[in-house]
């Protein structure tokens, strides 16, 4: 018995979960501290959470090239996880930076906001480093539950309530599918460890045609596809993105989505590599559907926040293309794309946060008329983010798309690549429309009410640096993405 405990403890290896431990500690500490802070004093909480993220960053970076495995291989802090962890940290940090003034403006200066973001990030990290269905599930739920709260954070605003509730109900529903899928796979293979499942399925090829396996794979996928926002499981995305507080929308579209991709990628590659041709075929269809639906519906949107929500669906579609390619380039393309998307999307949302006016009633296209002249620097920043979202060089968006489509072409999915670029062409239209309003039309709004605080500026500058760094000299990061995949 003692022996067993010792064996168990030897297998624990706390380093494998060190980043999330730090985050959770900071989060819980912050919860306590909040209790003693006067109401409305959120600034210390912001700083503490930023410090927490910085501390986590150390733990994350130290794991690069130095993989840690723990908990009997239920957790693996390998390069793959680390790459995603960096993405989460950046997303969280940018979100926190843009949130403070926003919360005050909207009348919810509540300190619990920051710990929730930290917990979400921790959950995302578990997802990225989970190598057991249990850890992945746990991470997913930690992340999701925090997000439900964050989406409905403005509890006095019915739109925020609605976003939270919708997200919660549908999220829980999708969790049901995910779990059922996991249960079926467990039933077939007798294990929840990803690598064991893969080995087992590979060894017993008769199971590859077992309806239980196949249904399990699909149900499992649905759980992740829901979080990714792939059609037809995307329907919550626009509503929740629109209703949630803008920084949370930004965060949701980058961090948790990347986490879902991370877990999805790992499960598909670790467990179901034997069925690759089959599931890539399904994902092919979903990728096309997702890109088309996202881009096409975005065209008729007049609320920029909602438009970006649809665009985020489309971007999930592009990233799925990388998964369909299912080769090294495609996978590392997904990694790179998620990082690039984090910069450009959160950068764009940061400007929406500023331009939103109290109550977020200035997010329509009309509201942006003449924005480029009234606020030239912010206008340029927004423009750059939008060009990056379009995928125009030399921005991160282009590099990311190139990476992913290169993977698809290499894998022989020429038509998928063509559909992808055609979708890009469609997407140009609605992104351009924002610029048309910003620069080519004169508006009545004078934006005198706009308060630009240093922290938001930092967040925007980080976004721009990221966009150009990943766009002009993406080599280093692309190479990291290459090294990050299994």
């Amino acid at each position: 018995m003692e022996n067993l405990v010792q064996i168990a403890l030897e297998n624990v290896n706390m380093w494998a979960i060190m980043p999330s431990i730090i985050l959770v500690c900071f989060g819980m500490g912050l919860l306590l501290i909040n209790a003693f802070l006067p109401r409305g004093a959120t600034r210390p909480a912001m700083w503490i959470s930023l410090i927490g993220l910085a501390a986590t960053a150390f733990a994350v970076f130290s794991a690069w090239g130095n993989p840690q495995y723990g908990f009997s291989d239920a957790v693996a802090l390998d390069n793959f996880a680390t790459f995603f962890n960096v993405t989460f940290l950046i997303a969280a940090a940018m979100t926190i930076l843009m949130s403070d003034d926003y919360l005050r403006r909207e009348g919810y200066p509540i300190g619990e906001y920051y710990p929730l973001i930290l917990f979400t990030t921790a959950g995302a990290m578990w997802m990225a480093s989970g190598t057991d269905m249990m850890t992945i599930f746990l991470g997913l739920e930690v992340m999701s539950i925090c997000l439900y709260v964050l989406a409905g954070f403005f509890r006095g605003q019915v739109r925020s309530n609605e976003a939270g509730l919708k997200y919660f109900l549908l999220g829980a529903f999708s969790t049901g599918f995910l779990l059922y899928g996991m249960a079926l796979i467990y039933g077939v293979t007798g294990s929840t460890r990803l690598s064991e499942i893969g080995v087992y399925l590979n060894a017993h090829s008769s199971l590859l045609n077992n309806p239980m396996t196949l249904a399990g794979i699909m149900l499992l996928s649905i759980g992740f596809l829901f979080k990714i926002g792939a059609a037809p499981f995307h329907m919550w995305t626009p509503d929740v993105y629109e209703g949630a507080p803008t920084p949370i929308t930004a965060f949701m579209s980058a961090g948790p989505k990347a986490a879902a991709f991370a877990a999805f990628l790992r499960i598909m590659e670790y467990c179901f590599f034997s069925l690759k041709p089959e599931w890539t075929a399904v994902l092919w269809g979903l990728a096309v559907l997702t890109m088309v639906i996202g881009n096409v519906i975005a065209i008729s949107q007049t609320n920029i926040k909602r438009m970006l929500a649809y665009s985020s669906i489309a971007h999930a579609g592009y990233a799925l293309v990388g998964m369909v390619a299912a080769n090294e380039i495609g996978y590392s393309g997904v990694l790179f794309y998620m990082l690039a998307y984090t910069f450009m999307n959160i950068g764009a949302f940061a400007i929406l946060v500023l331009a939103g006016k109290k109550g977020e009633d200035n997010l329509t296209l009309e509201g942006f008329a003449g924005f480029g002249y009234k606020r030239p620097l912010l206008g340029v920043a927004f423009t750059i983010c939008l060009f990056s979202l379009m995928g125009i060089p030399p921005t991160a968006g282009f590099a990311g798309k190139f990476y992913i489509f290169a993977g698809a072409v290499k894998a022989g999915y020429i038509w998928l690549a063509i559909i992808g670029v055609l979708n890009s062409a469609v997407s140009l239209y609605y992104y351009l429309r924002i610029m048309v309003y910003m620069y080519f039309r004169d508006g009545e709004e004078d934006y005198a009410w706009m308060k630009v605080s240093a922290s938001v500026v930092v967040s925007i500058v980080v976004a721009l640096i990221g966009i150009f760094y990943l766009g002009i000299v993406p080599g280093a990061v692309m190479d990291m993405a290459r090294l990050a995949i299994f």
Partner: protein
Amino acid sequence: MYDYLWLIPIMPLIGCIINGLLGKKFIKNEKVIGVIATGAVFMSFLLSVKYFFQLLGDPVKTHEQVVMSWISVGNLQIDWGFLFDPLSALMLLVVTGVGSLIHLYSIGYMHGDPGYYRFFSYMNLFVFAMLMLVTGNNALVMFIGWEGVGLCSYLLIGFYIDKKSAGDAAKKAFVVNRIGDFGFLLGLFLVFWTLGSEHGVWTLNFVELAEHGHLLGFGGTAVTIATLCFFLGATGKSAQIPLYTWLPDAMEGPTPVSALIHAATMVTAGVYMIGRMNVLFAMSPTTMMTVAIIGALTAIFAASIGFAQNDIKRVLAYSTVSQLGYMFIAMGVGAFTAGIFHLMTHAFFKACLFLCSGSVIHAMHHALHHAHLDDDAQDMRNMGGLRKKMPITFITFAISCVAIAGVPGLSAFFSKDEILWWAFGSTRGSWYVWAIGAIAAGMTAFYMFRCLYMTFFGKQKTNAKAKDHIHESPLSMTIPLMVLGFLALVGGYIGIPAVLGGANHIHHFLEPVFGHAQEAYHIGIKETLHHSHALEYGLMAVSIGVGFFGILVATFMYMMNPDLPGKFTKAFPKFHRAVFNKWYVDEIYDALVVNPTKSFGTFCWKGFDVKVIDGIVNGLAKLIGLISAGLRHTQTGLFHNYALAMVFGMVVMVAIFVLR
């Protein structure tokens, strides 16, 4: 030897640049401008004369001078090169000689015009281009001149920029010429390509073309098509059927322009070009035949229109077209020398006629202007009896009239007669060409005398108020008249045919240019006719007779019975209207070419571009928009729909995956 040959064309260019750049702001003085311009051309003339006499005594008759390379791409090597041989020497004399006179004339004629400097600048530019045309040693340099004269013609026809009709005429001239140029270019391409790819001679140089042209083979398809293309170019430039319509309209320009460009020089460029490429043309009997027939038809057709025109310049214009037809008859039947000879005599008498008419118009215009009348200064019905008021003009006009009518002893008699003789007797000729030519000669005599009578004889029909203000033109205008009149009188004596005991100098002079081709392809008077002087005399007599008949009819109708033309008109109203309206050719062209092109353009723009292409593009955008607006409503905001979509997606995915 001929080191300064390049100076001949350059002199007028310098004049053009000086007047063009400095004329308005710095020189201003009309006299100085006129002298610069005239002087420039006159210098060229002097140099041409010098070189001409040098050439006369030179055993080598062909001289080339290459200034520098122009276009050099692979096997296409084009130089800025000049060619001086008897043909270009003669043309140089005509162009610079007549050109200087007309410049001199213009000093007086254009007096007081606000665009004085512009006029002389354009005129000099024209002379430059014309000289490039005649001295170029390859087809491309010639083409520079070819298009250059077209441009100057455009500028000068449209010189009175206030007049819309002038602008229209200018544009028409340019565009119609461009149609000809299209042919010229194709001809160039075909010759260059055929000679090059099949015989390895990549050249556009005239000397080399003359030397190697035979490689194309007598009567070959390529050479026939190429020469027909060239001839299309010639019909444009030289106003032959079917592209003659621009020339009568071109009379909108100032009269010296008409004299220089549309009588003496530019319009003869087509004739010159055929002369220059005589080797190629000689190799294609088909083309030669076409040239002769087109020339004959033009000669008679234009003459017929000349019957009913009342505008003095238009009469002369149609006469020019008709005379050019003569020259093409000559070229077509292989009488190259005769063609060039007629070109020269025509330059004298037609320039003289135009300048006389200019003198008349000038006087009329001043008189009418003085009397504040709006009557048409060019309408012969407003003239009459001017011989007393403008004696010098009258005499020179009359001399030229007699000359053009083919009265023996005057210049045109010799040239025209030689053409008719060749038309009948050449190996490439035939009796019907001769017959048409002879009839046209009679018609020419008729309408020219009609013109003479209406203008200078009879009652003075000018409005009484203006009558007394008509004066003879100043000396600067009458001197050129007199010189040209003199030339029209005696110009023919360099080409008195052997049958009349002449030496036919011009024939011998041009021998080096044309002799080779004529010999090689058996072009000449038929063997059977070689010694039948009687026939030659007989034909001569017929043509003289026809000419006199024309004069008599004109005298009868317009001198003796001035009422007769009116009656005649009434008797055949339709016929008269058709002739008066130039056989409705312009209208036919409008209906067949111009309007369809315009409607096609409108269709392409409003129909195809806007409706079809942009319709598809915008329609696609709209379609996507509609799809978007439709799909948007799938997003109902209702939980149940979303959950259902998920379940539906799940069922489909699982079904596909499991049942695949």
